[in-house]
Structure formats: C-alpha cells, structure tokens
C-alpha cells in the first residue's frame, strides 16, 4: 500500500505550485483517473490506505504540525509585511507545495505534500475560521483556489472521514441540519462541502458559541444560524425547511430523542442522519461498546435505521459515529 502511495506521488512528480496536472479541479474525469489507480485495489483498500498514510505518523505528530502552523492566529492582516512565514500559503509546513486531489466523498479533498491533510474548498478565500492552515493552488485557467485544512482532532465529522466512513451523505447542493453547531468550526467545513447551492441550518443553544456562530455565518451565505434549544424543534420550525441530512453532535444523554424529534419535523423520507456518540455523556458507567449498542437500539425504535458505525478512537476517546437513513420504505417483495 505504501508503494501505492509512492506511485501516486510519482505521478504527480512535478509538484510545483502551479501544477496544472493536478490543482484543485475535482472534476469527474480527473477523479476517474485517480480512482482507477486506486480502485484497482478496491474500495476497502482505499480506505485502509488513507489510514496507513496518516496513522504511520501517529496522532501526536499530526496534532503538533497543526499547532505549529497556527502561529499567532492573525488573519493575515499585517502592516507593511513582517509576516515571518507563520501562516505560509503552501502546505502544512510553511512554504511547502501541496497537491490537491479529490477525496472519495464529493466536495472533500486531500492535500498531499510531506504530510497528508484533509481539506475542503474554502467558500470565503483568505479567511480562517478557527486559525486553520489554508492552502492556495492555481488551477489551469490561472484562478487561485483556496483550501482549508480540516482538523480531525477538532471535528467529529473530519475524524469520521479519516476513519474511512462509507458515506457521509453531505455533498454539494445538500441541505443539512447541523445540531450542536458550537462555534461553527465543523459547520464551516460542511458549508464548504455543500457549496452555494446547499444550505446548512446550524443550531446551537449556547450564547457564547452562538455569537461566534453568527459571526461566522455573516460571511457564509449558506449557513443559517439558529440559537435555540435543539430539544424543541417546534421553536425554530419557521426557520427550517425540509433537509436531506441531519448531523448531530450535541453530546446530551437524550440525543437519540433529540435526533428523532428533529427528524420527525425536518428530515425528508429517505433522508440520512450522521450521529456522533460520546459514550461518557450517555452513560459513564457502561463500557463504550455497550453504550453504542444501546444508542443504536434507541435509534431503531424511532424509524432511524443505522447503516454503519465507526469508532473515532484515533482522535477522541470513547467516541463513535453512526450513519443511517430515515423512514426507508420497506422493499416490496416482487410478486412472482
């Protein structure tokens, strides 16, 4: 598998900044070319390759790299230069050139340089939401595209993608209801993925985080901030339409009920949900595996049918992510 990675690198040997061969295109044809190289080993293998590529360095190293990169958290405004290269444009380490290739999930990309990173295409170029690193590439027609690095240690969705979840259902043009939006760090990435044609309804109850969320939403027109308790979806029913996906990261003991209530109001039939479970928060006495199972059972009782689950062990302790669908129509047995 590592040879496979090297092969990829070999293909993109001309790893210059203005790499027309790659660059942030993510078009259909391009993806096919990549996938052909990868698909040969099968979908599952592709997932494993991702892990190997990252796991090899270990969680600690990855974290350290991001912290170093964060610098002083200034937004690139400077008086008369004097920027010391902290927020370098290229790559994870300042000054590195990076190659952007599309990820299996639509709207998500991988930045390959000395280290790999999960990135999304920034809807607001030039702006960092939580002081994450940004990578600028120039594609063929000379336009600069900016990508923001997605930190899996700070975002459950990013962690789930890194752990190789099959389907996140959040794609360009999707309408997403995000429960537990906090300060909007993950929401910004979801907003990048769904793009200007999609909508993200971000619900957060806390006022402090809500303020940051509102500020973030000011710059992104596809994020609608809702500062309200997710336990009472009737309170914000005027603000939300029907959605395709619900992402829930509320960390409450009754989160299954919260998800079910919101789904009953807003999730379309055949829609999907992505739920992040924190075992300690549901029941701190039971072992994590049992907690996950009990949550899955609770979900089933409310017409939320779980399809897959990944544990986010590399990034958070005792966390898991469940993906499933809502009100799947029963398959009619074809009359013989």
């Amino acid at each position, binding site marked *: 598998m590592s040879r496979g990675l090297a092969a990829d690198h070999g293909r993109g040997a001309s790893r210059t900044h203005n790499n027309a061969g790659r660059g942030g295109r993510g078009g259909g044809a391009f993806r096919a070319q990549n996938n052909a190289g990868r698909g040969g080993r099968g979908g599952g293998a592709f997932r494993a390759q991702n892990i190997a590529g990252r796991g090899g360095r270990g969680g600690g190293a990855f974290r350290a790299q991001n912290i170093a990169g964060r*610098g*002083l*958290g*200034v*937004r690139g*405004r*400077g*008086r008369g*230069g*004097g*920027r*010391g*290269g*902290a927020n370098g444009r290229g790559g994870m380490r300042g000054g590195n050139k990076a190659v952007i290739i599309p990820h299996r999930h639509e709207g998500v990309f991988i930045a390959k340089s000395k280290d790999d990173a999960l990135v999304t295409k920034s809807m607001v170029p030039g702006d960092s939401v939580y002081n994450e690193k940004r990578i600028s590439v120039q594609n063929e027609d000379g336009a600069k595209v900016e990508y923001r690095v997605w930190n899996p240690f700070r975002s459950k969705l990013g962690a789930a993608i890194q752990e190789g979840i099959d389907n996140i259902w959040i794609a360009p043009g999707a309408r997403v209801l995000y429960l537990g939006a906090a300060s909007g760090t993950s929401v910004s990435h979801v907003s990048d993925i769904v793009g200007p044609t999609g*909508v993200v*309804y971000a619900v957060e109850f806390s*006022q*402090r985080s*809500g*303020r*940051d*969320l*509102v*500020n973030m*939403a*000011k710059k992104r*027109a596809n994020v*609608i*901030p*809702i*500062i*309200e308790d997710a336990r009472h979806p*009737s*309170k*914000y*029913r*005027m*603000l*939300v*339409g*029907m959605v395709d996906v619900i992402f829930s990261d509320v960390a409450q003991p009754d989160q299954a009920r919260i998800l079910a209530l919101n789904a*009953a*109001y*807003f999730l*379309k*039939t*055949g829609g999907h949900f992505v739920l992040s479970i924190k075992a300690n928060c549901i029941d701190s006495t039971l072992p994590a595996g049992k907690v996950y199972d009990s949550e899955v059972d609770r979900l089933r009782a409310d017409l939320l049918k779980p399809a897959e689950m990944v544990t986010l062990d590399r990034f958070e302790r005792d966390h898991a992510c469940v993906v499933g669908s809502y*009100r799947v129509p029963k398959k009619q047995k074809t009359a013989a």
Partner: protein
Amino acid sequence: MALYLLYETSSGYSLFLANGLDEIGQNTEAVRNSVSDLNRFGKVAQLTAFLPFESALDALNQCNSVSEGIMTDELRNFLELNLPKVKGGKKVKFSLGVAEPKIGSHIFEVTKIPCQSNEFVHELLRGVRLHFERFIKDLKSGDLEKAQLGLGHSYSRAKVKFNVNRVDNMVIQAIFLLDTLDKDVNSFAMRVREWYSWHFPELAKIVNDNYLYAKLAKFIDDKSKLSEDKLPELTDILGDEDKAKEVVEAAKASMGQDLSPIDLINVQQFAQRVMDLSEYRKKLHEYLITKMNDIAPNLASLIGEIVGARLISHAGSLTNLAKCPSSTLQILGAEKALFRALKTRGNTPKYGLIFHSSFIGRASARNKGRMARYLANKCSIASRIDCFSESGTTVFGEKLREQVEERLDFYDKGVAPRKNIDVMKAAIGSAENKDTAMETEEAPAVTPAKKSKKKKSKSDTAENGEAEDTEDKPVVNGVAAEDAKSEKKKKKEKRKLEQEPAVEKSNGTNGVDTDEQGGTAKKKKTKSKDQDRKELQDASDMKKKRKKSKSEE
C-alpha cells in the same frame, strides 16, 4: 369534518385544507405514503390562503411569538379571515391542525377555533414542508431560503444580543484608513510644497508645518500682491508676527517665477484639498477615539485609543484579541523578529505594538521587558473584560492603569504596589456603585459578606492550608475575579439573570482547570508570603464553597 392546517414559514403564514382522508381512520401510514408524491399530496392538501409578512421586523416578531407558542394579532386576523366563521353555541364543523399544542390552545382560547396537534397533523405538515415551494406560485425557488437566512440571522442576533454599535469592524477600518490618510496627506503636502515653490521658494524654508504651508499657499496666491496690509491676516494664520514679517520680506525679494492666474488657481485648489484632507484626518481621529471608547473602553483607558485600535486590528477582531494569551499580545506586531529568533534559537523580541504605549518609554532600559510583560498581562485582562462584559464601564481600565503606574514606580523607586486583590475588589465595588445608584446599600451589604468569609477562613485555617495557598498562587487574579463575581451575584438578583449561570459555570471550570495546574506548582513560595495567607484563604473559601455546590448539583 374539515381539517385545516396552519403552516408557518419565514415568508409568511399559510393555511391548507386537508381532505381526501377519512377522519376516523386518521391513518398516518396512508399519509406517509401519499406525502412523497406531489400529485397525490396535492389532492390531499390544498393551499387556501397565504399571508406574507410585511417587513423583516414583522417577521421577527411573528417568529418570536411562534417560538413561544403565542398567537399574534396578525395570525389571529389571518385565521379569522380565512377560516369559516365560528358561531358560538353551534358545533364547529372544522378543526385547525397546528404543529404544536401550546399555540393551539392559545388559538382556541382567543378565537374558539378548535385545534388539534397529533401525529396525523404532523405527517401532513411534513408533506406541506416538503412540497411548500410548489404550492405558492409567487415564491421563486431560493426566495424561501433567503427569507429563512434573513429571519434566522435576526432571530439569532436578538438571542445573542448582538449590539450593532459595538461592532469592532469600524475601529479596524478606521485605523487602516488613518494610516493610509497619513501617508497620503504627507505625499500631497510635499507635492504642494514643490509646486508652490516654483513660484515662491523661500516660503518652504520659512514655514515647516505642512498644514500651515498649504494654508499660506492658498492665502498668498500671487506673491507680488503680498504687501504690508496683509500682515495682520498673515499673523493670524502663522500665529507669529516675526514670521509673518519674514514672509512679506521674502516675497518682495523672491527668486521664484511668476505664474499665470490659471496655474495659481490650480495650485490653490490643490492646497485646499490638502487642508480638507488634514481636517478630515482630525475628524477621523476623533471618530476613532469615540468608537474605541464605545467598544473597548477599558483597553482604551489603559493603553490609549490608538495603540488599542492597532492591537485590535492586528489581531483581527476584539474577540480574537481577547482569546489570545497575553504573551501573544506582548509581541503582536513583531512576528518577523519572533519567528526569526525562534528559527535561529536567538532571543525573542520583548515587545511589539505595545512598545508605543507611554509606559514602556518611561521604564528604564533594564525594566522595559518586565514592563512590557506586565502591561501585556493587564491589556489581556482589559480586552477580555471589554469583549465579554455587557456594561460599558471604564473602571477596570483605570484601575489597571493605576496598577501599571504603581509597578513603574516600584521599578523606579521601590515603592511597593497595592495587592491585586484589593485593586480588583475596589474596581468591582465602584463598578457596581455606578450600576446601582443606591450607594448606601452597597456598603453594609459588602461588609456582612466579608465577615461571613472571614469566619469561614478561621475555621478552615488548619485544613488544607498549604495546599490551597499553592493552588491559589497561579490563580490569584482569576479567583479574585471569581470572588467578586460571587458578591455580584448576591446583589444583582434582578439584573441579567441569564448571565449568571454562564458566569458561574465559567468560573467553576476556571477554578477546576487551574486547580489541576496549581496542584503541581512550587510549594516553596508559601513561606515567603505569609501575610497573603489570610486574603488567599478568603478567596480559596469562595472557591471551595463553589466547588461544594458544584459537587452537590
């Protein structure tokens, strides 16, 4: 019996009529199946009325009422207009389906329209929500989303008390503009000098100030027309009679060329421009000062408006500045030197933008670094108070400023500064004095609280004496603030109740976090600071009380 449906959206209220489904068999399964297909659902539910909201303000009011479950007058009118009349006494032949029982009961109370809110209604409403755009012909796709966006923002902003006046963007833009203006005014002034010197070169050497030069250039116009009778006006402009005489003398013996009237007019206009820009710069400066006092009064009173504004603009926003640690604040603006030093393992810079405040200049060379660190710490405190407190008092800024002055004195003369706890207590006291106009109530209220704490301290002196002290060392400032905030809580019963749980929680977590850090702190320092023990006991007891209450919860 007809079933109507009330469906509220961001664009307005809508009323649907559900039929084609047997009421007795209110079969949710059947509804579910029909929902997915628009044609089938169109037969199940038809739009009977739609009332768009008149304005964004109206929409916000309606949204707030709907979230509370209260019926507004507009909703009432809409319902009474579009539903069949409810005649008192006769059995009502229809029913209104609503999403939530609370608003249903309110509607029934006021208008006697029977409401129901059950699973059946929910399923129907799901269908309506899914297909809503097709029902309303006037709404183009995307209109509803725009309405949701606008309404969501205004609803959320009201919830977080987003104060438009306290937006820090104005300050950031103003300081950028100030810098740009300075450069531009300077270039233009130089240009005026060059240009007018073609006509009257000696003036450039006599008058050094740019603004005065421009004024003079405009006034003198053609130097050949300058004579003694213009002297009083010249004196007015220059403020100095000798200079004025010099100017007149120089004009008589000048080497400069004559300019045609048109050329002179052009120079005049340009000189006028320069003067206007200069005056605008002054006004901008005043605007900046006012804005800084609005959004960050403590920071402004501590280090001055200009330096404060530069710090805010460098960090990106007031919130960013408040979030960054004080060591970052200390070297904000010296990043090039910082990273160069880090890469080459040299000495990192001691000050960045902070250097331009007056305190650093007044410190001796040996103590500049120490003052910079101390000042950065106090600036951090001030910026955090500004960012997160609701009131706009400058008390804390002034007290912090006094502390910095005292520290300067300490370095100069060895005068011991006041303890931080005392200063902070005084600051909070006077902040509350400003809030409540009842000064007499404050004094007796403060002393019983203090007395109760002192009693506790005596009983707790034996147990955990040492441990508490060491924990408190790194946390003295934080605990002092916590201390006072608990006092605040006792007094401020009526005011801002929602703030308190948040404050309480944040203080609790602060205490817990620093506990874990403080536990490993050095124990040697306890012996040298015996006189602090009592005050620290007070503080530690408040923390213990709070910890106890937290464990009870």
